[in-house]
């Protein structure tokens, strides 16, 4: 598979008044052309930060401390603000969790879409307006009157459809979807995910799906990366990782998600580590049931567990060199 995005040893920190929050600590990730990859993890694990770093929109007081991101072989690190803007315009698109804050409340839906079309494709306003109506139909809003409505007149599901339409205005190669269905009910979540899967196939886009919903990853992603405390702890094909999780955190996470019956309830003891005062070694060591001496001293690197599956855990180091 051709590589589209390559993230190498990326570190991002937020310089807050409480101290330096180490949001990403040397993360490497690849996204193939036209691939749908899931990025899962709990709150604060750094999954949204990766998405924002790729599009070059890490908010203040955040900074990229190290590492490299390249898209289509082009290194993004040396790019100026304007160059990055141009790059986003032609190649990237983003969808956020809450569509009601992502849309402009005082502009009609059609005008917002037309504005995006005009900016991205350099066409006249009149043409852009027509395209706006067409794109709405493409995302399942067949009623052309919606183009004349304001965001507050639409339901959450409809707004997310508009957001997907907005993302499609530039024919992006990579769509980063950050929790696109987390604010929606399950039956709507299914509708929106089907739509995303549908348009990404039709437009030949790669999708980086950031979510905490492992069920959604299982159904829609080819590959998955599991994050914990600013690190990718396991990655591989969805089937391998979800059927035969290698990392103790992935194992714990999956059993916590499955719930089962009352008697089967299992949980990971403890809480997520403080990202200001990083501990040496493996960040999961204090909660891990299979912790060894080495875990509190040396930080494990992603190691091959089997074909198409890597885990950052000392249990596998030395066992099978990558």
């Amino acid at each position: 598979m051709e590589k589209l995005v390559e993230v190498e040893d990326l570190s991002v920190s937020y310089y807050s008044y409480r101290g330096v929050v180490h949001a990403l600590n040397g993360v490497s990730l690849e996204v193939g052309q036209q691939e749908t990859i899931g990025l899962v993890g709990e709150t604060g694990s750094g999954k949204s930060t990766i998405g924002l770093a790729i599009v070059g929109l890490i908010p203040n007081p955040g900074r990229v401390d190290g590492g490299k991101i390249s898209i289509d072989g082009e290194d993004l690190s040396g790019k100026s603000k304007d160059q990055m803007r141009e790059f986003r315009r032609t190649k990237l698109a983003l969808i956020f969790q809450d569509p009601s804050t992502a849309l402009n409340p005082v502009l009609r839906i059609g005008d917002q879409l037309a504005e995006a079309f005009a900016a991205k494709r350099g066409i006249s306003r009149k043409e852009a307006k027509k395209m706006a109506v067409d794109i709405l139909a493409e995302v399942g809003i067949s009623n052309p009157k919606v183009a004349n409505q304001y965001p507050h007149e639409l339901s959450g599901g409809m707004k997310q459809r508009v957001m997907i339409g907005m993302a499609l205005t530039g024919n992006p190669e990579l769509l980063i979807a950050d929790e696109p269905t987390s604010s929606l009910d399950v039956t709507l979540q299914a509708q929106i995910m089907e739509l995303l899967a549908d348009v990404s196939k039709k437009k030949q886009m790669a999708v980086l799906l950031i979510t905490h919903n492992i069920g959604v990853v299982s159904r829609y992603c080819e590959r998955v990366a599991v994050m914990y405390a600013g690190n990718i702890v396991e990655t591989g094909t969805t089937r391998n990782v979800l059927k035969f999780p290698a990392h103790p955190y992935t194992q714990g996470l999956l059993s916590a998600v499955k719930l089962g019956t009352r008697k089967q309830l299992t949980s990971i003891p403890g809480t997520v580590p403080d990202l200001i005062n990083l501990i040496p070694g493996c960040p999961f060591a204090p909660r891990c049931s299979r912790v060894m001496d080495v875990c509190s001293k040396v930080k494990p690197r992603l190691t091959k567990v089997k074909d198409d599956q890597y885990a950052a855990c000392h249990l596998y180091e030395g066992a099978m060199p990558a």
Partner: protein
Amino acid sequence: MSLLKTEDLQMYFPIRGGVLRRAKTYVRAVDGVSFTIEKGETFGLVGESGSGKTTIGRMILKIIQPTGGKIYFDGVDITKAKGKQLKQLRARMQMVFQNPYSSLNPRKTVMQILKDPFRIHRHLSNREAEHRVITLLEMVGLSAEHAQRYPYEFSGGQRQRIAIARAIALSPEFVFFDEPTSSLDVSVQAQILKNLVQLQETFGLTCLFVTHNIEVIQCVADRVGVMYLGKLVETGTNEAIFSNPLHPYTKALFSAVPDVDPDVKKERIMLPGEITSAVGKLPACRFFNRCPLAKEGLCDVVEPQLRDVGKGHMVACHMVPDGAGLADVPRAS
């Protein structure tokens, strides 16, 4: 014996307008819901946003006054309870809210928050109350050192533990859990649920558990009710509902939840459109517009009533034949 019983419970919120602020129309949030909860049982209500599940809990706890119907608690009609009777009731029924960030007073320490129930209802001495608070904290997996801290010093999971401690402080008979884990991460969710199940068994609590998370309901509930637009569309034992969902809405709802196991290929029923608004005129069967089985001339004219289709499995749908519940997997004892 049943501890709680609702009969034809109804909550219409008026939408006012015009110069005289007269009710122009109503939001029928809950429209004729009847169920019973046995002593020591956990009854789970599932449904999507706006289906009325939280409103039911709030009516039972007397936070809002129903516009119709009756609520019986321990055999007594509490629909019109007030004053002294209401205060006594409050000690016997408690609630845990969805958002632990807004349900704890930010200006009080954990000790002050947890002492309140003893102060108000039990008139304990300060020392005795403090002693009880420490015991409570330990029961929910916290310790004495946490007592002097303020809510902002805790994580979401820890805050929810404090909220649970407050709810069980007076050993109530009935607790209403309103989406207690939906603002938490999954690994924390499992911790909290484990703690809840433990406490419930220790105290023999009777619970109403409301959530939109179907896996959570399957995990904790003994019996399950499925709600759609203010109506109960299906009820039955946990095993019956999950092994043999009968109402077309229940089926679609369950099929929409993607399974974690990539090898499980669920039959997917895509529902067209979205949940209709509960304002104004509604079709006889609330699910008529989106139902794959809907029959014109029947479902839009005659309202389906909850009826037993075998083994106590109740469904409100014209298209489900009698006896369909006989295929349920029996309840494991």
